[in-house]
């Protein structure tokens, strides 16, 4: 187990290193003149040179990269170009909103997806199965931003118009400030993120569960006289979950994209919206910081998924 862990952590670190290189390369291959933008229109060449020197932009790319890596390892991701705020501070401020959004959505989508999949698989070709798989395919075909817009239109606007202002139009209230409002503001964003992703899991769980329920050991379990509930949930679901967990690991990268879109639609000041804003301002340190932070989060989450995988399915448990 320890060797497996060390190997995975090592590989994760290499992947992360490659990602930092790619991000750096993209930004420095492309011409973009931050110093000029910052200095304003009437700046003299001297001013621009001074700004470049202060931001370290006059150094060769590899030197900038090494400096960045060295600082990053010491918990310093640089400062944003415009207000000299540490990037780590910007990330820490935006993080609670994003984590609230992502974790809540993940819980909803896993519960919804897996439960629907099980119901579908236990009664294949029933009305419930057809309805659930139909819904799943519909949401699967739906872009996240469109679902967000539709939820805003029907559940915020039309409902409020009808005199039931249950849901707000967007924004984020910190959990520590007001838990009830936090919850109320997050319901629509959660649904937006969760419904699209849950669809994949309904389909996946259904297929995997159908396979498992055809296995001999399920017949044995039934023959032993176990209740159907126990057969399905204890014996069946446990091994049917393996591909679901794998998919969960793969989807974490996608989740980042979903978060960006959802935060934009519902104007939640999380990491995704901060990144989009930073990109509009060409604020390199912030963009690089957030991309690398997100990649790290995805890699660590993948590592955890691999561990969960080993716990769920003894056959893949590494030696």
């Amino acid at each position, binding site marked *: 187990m320890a060797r497996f862990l060390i190997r995975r952590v090592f*590989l994760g670190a*290499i*992947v992360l290193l*490659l*990602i930092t290189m*790619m*991000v750096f390369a*993209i*930004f420095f291959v*492309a011409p*973009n003149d931050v110093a000029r933008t910052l200095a304003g229109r009437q700046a003299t060449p001297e001013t621009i040179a001074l700004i470049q020197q202060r931001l370290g932009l006059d150094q060769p790319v590899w030197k900038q990269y090494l400096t960045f890596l060295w600082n990053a390892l010491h918990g310093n991701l640089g400062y944003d170009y415009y207000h000299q705020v540490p990037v780590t501070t910007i990330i820490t401020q935006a993080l609670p909103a994003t984590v609230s959004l992502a974790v809540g959505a993940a819980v909803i989508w896993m519960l919804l997806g897996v439960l629907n999949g099980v119901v579908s698989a236990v009664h*294949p070709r029933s009305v419930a199965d057809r309805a659930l798989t139909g819904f799943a*395919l*519909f949401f*699967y*075909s*739906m*872009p*996240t*931003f*469109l679902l967000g*817009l*539709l939820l*805003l*239109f029907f559940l915020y*606007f039309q409902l409020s118009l009808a005199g039931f202002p249950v849901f707000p139009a967007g924004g984020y209230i910190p959990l520590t400030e007001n838990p009830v409002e936090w919850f109320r503001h997050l319901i629509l964003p959660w649904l937006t993120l969760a419904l699209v992703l849950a669809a994949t899991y309904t389909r996946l769980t259904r*297929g995997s569960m*159908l396979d498992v329920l*055809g296995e001999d050991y399920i017949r044995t379990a039934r023959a032993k006289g176990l209740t159907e509930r126990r057969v399905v949930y204890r014996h069946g679901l446990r091994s049917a979950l393996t591909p679901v967990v794998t998919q969960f690991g*793969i989807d974490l*990268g*996608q989740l*980042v*994209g979903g978060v*960006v*879109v959802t935060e*934009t*639609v519902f104007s939640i000041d999380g990491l*995704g919206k901060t*990144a*989009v804003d930073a*990109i*509009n301002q*060409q604020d390199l340190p912030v*963009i690089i910081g*957030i*991309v690398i932070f*997100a*990649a790290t989060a*995805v*890699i660590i989450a*993948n590592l955890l998924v691999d561990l969960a995988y080993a716990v769920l399915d003894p056959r893949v448990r590494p030696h």
Partner: protein
Amino acid sequence: MRWGRARTGEAREGLDPHSSELETEQPVRSIEGRGPWLLAWERLRRDRVAIGSFVVIVLIFLAAIFAPVFTLLTGHGVDTQYRTTGLTPDGLPMPPSAEFWLGTDDLGRDILVRIAYGARISLLVGVVATLITVAIGILVGLAAGYFGGIVDTVLARLVDVVLSFPFLLFAIALVSITGPSLAVAIIAISAFSWAAVARIVRGQVLSIREREFVEAARSLGASDWRIMFVDVLPNVMAPVIVYTTLLIPTVIVIEATLSFLGLGVPPPTPTWGGMLNDAISYYQVAWWFIVFPGAALVITTLAFNLLGDGVRDAFDPGSDRR
């Protein structure tokens, strides 16, 4: 180039010149030899949902190709702003009417005509980016699976990197530097979607390269390239085709998302995602501004997904229905 010919030949008639290799692995076959492609096609033909979706897709393609017809029918140009007839006195979009069948947008343009022209971008990006993605994925997967060893290790790590990269953030960053355009959208999508294809192809190649007919080809002195593209590739095409059909709607959604974030094809070119982006500020006063472009998008992706499911069931009848 070779595999392209082999694939279409096989798909159409099941009379592939290389089918002799297939036959060595499946000796029990009638003399007419209905190949797996023909069998799959026959199953697909009986799948009413899949054929219905296919018809819908053809109609969408026709609408895209003959988009100018909508201009003729309505008499409205695609970028023409009808400021007097197409906007309310307050300057708001007009609801659907006899004049504007699906209403107008915030600049008084005909939504129906723009949806038809927008289909061009969605389908173009969907098909082209998917083809590039699949081509890269096949090359990488073939190389990794066939050569193994250090090639495999390096390529597999590369696949890991690409898969764990936050794609959308990267695409946003890329576009912010190069400026939005059709080519950049296609490149950004292809550059980050091939990894999944590579993974599928690699897995298949790993098992196929150990088969007897590959050994036979090698002992006949066939080159690595010939074995990879002539002997191995046709045998991994079935899962690739299934994945391709399901990848097109995904790519269409990504393109729409990029356009929605203002990072796709720049205005005034109509795109479905771009129209929905314009619609955000007006959703409280103009439901048609969201509903119609949104419906166009969902109908298209849904049709491709249903067709993809049908294609998967046709190649692997046991996969989903029992």
